């Protein structure tokens, strides 16, 4: 439903405002890389703008540090609605290595509502394009939570494997 809505609302063009909230510049360089002719996200009608008031989409990169927190909130409020927020990089998604340090808010999710996460440290330009395409409804989501469980007690498995390995021993003795 959200995909259809975003297709309808932003189908023609998304104007992007890039907001660095304490990133190490890795993600910022990858975002700029996406705008170069090689990857060229302008195929989808995207354009980097300087002011949040012109933008539809905010790209957040970096774990939101304490000094940038009020500024991020201000920039988010300055975006005209409807607005989308992309968290780019591991820091914006979950806080990265700094998820529980005193100076960091542990990712963008606790500060502003984030619609799409693009993990990676830094994410490849291709995975940023993938996230954009996901938001536009061009591609499907590829990740899902995985739960694994051992159903049998491994001792039994071990003994069974051992019996299977030694199944021919009796014939060798008879030879």
């Amino acid at each position, binding site marked *: 439903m959200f995909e259809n809505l975003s297709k309808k609302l932003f189908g023609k063009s998304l104007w992007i405002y890039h907001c660095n909230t304490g990133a190490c510049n890795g993600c910022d360089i990858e975002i700029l890389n996406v705008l170069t002719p090689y990857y060229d996200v302008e195929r989808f009608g995207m354009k980097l703008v300087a002011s949040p008031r012109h933008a539809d989409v905010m790209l957040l990169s970096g774990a939101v540090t304490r000094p940038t927190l009020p500024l991020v909130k201000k920039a988010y409020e300055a975006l005209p609605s409807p607005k989308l927020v992309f968290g780019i990089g591991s820091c914006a998604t*979950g806080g990265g290595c700094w998820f529980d340090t005193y100076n960091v808010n542990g990712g963008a999710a606790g500060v502003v509502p984030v619609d799409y996460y693009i993990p990676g440290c830094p994410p490849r330009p291709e995975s940023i394009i993938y996230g954009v395409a996901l938001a536009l409804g061009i591609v499907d989501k590829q990740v899902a939570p995985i739960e*694994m469980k051992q159903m049998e007690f491994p001792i039994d498995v071990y003994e069974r494997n051992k019996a299977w390995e030694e199944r021919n021993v009796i014939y060798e003795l008879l030879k």
Partner: protein
Amino acid sequence: MWLTSKIKQVLMVIKPGVVTLNYPYVKRPTPENFRGSPHWDHEKCIGCGGCANHCPARTILVRDLCQEIRQMVYDGSRCTYCGRCADVCPEDAITMTDKYELATDDRKDLNESMELFMLTCKRCGRCYDMETRNKIDRMDIQGYRYDNIEARAFIRKTTDRFDEDMLKSTENFKRPEKIGE
């Protein structure tokens, strides 16, 4: 003058032609030694917790639910894909796949959890004591571990024997309040 320079530019651009990748429709193979998201093999894993000890972002959490069952959770949302877990794994149970298309609208999609049976001594019924002789036990934190998985909190406290009070006390663990806001 500017016209000649523009013509020159156009000629320069014609030479390489179109270089733009048609990415979301046509995929390009990943380079060799590319590290994407890590993946567990629950059949190979022995539950030593070495990956949890060595993860710089503390993405892997270990919680002993009882004497024999150990729950391990990988929270991919803050993973930096450094590959240390795959390096340190004694059984090669963790492999770095070449998956990088991880964009999602829900952080829970990146999680991977695993429940393991831990072997106990056939004579005394315990797992093993905290010893410093074998390679696994020399890896930082030893013994039974009680990380809180809901709060994604790493608890640096372990016990020699399984302790139910410890399990209960870490159930509702809360991070200390942050400065400011």
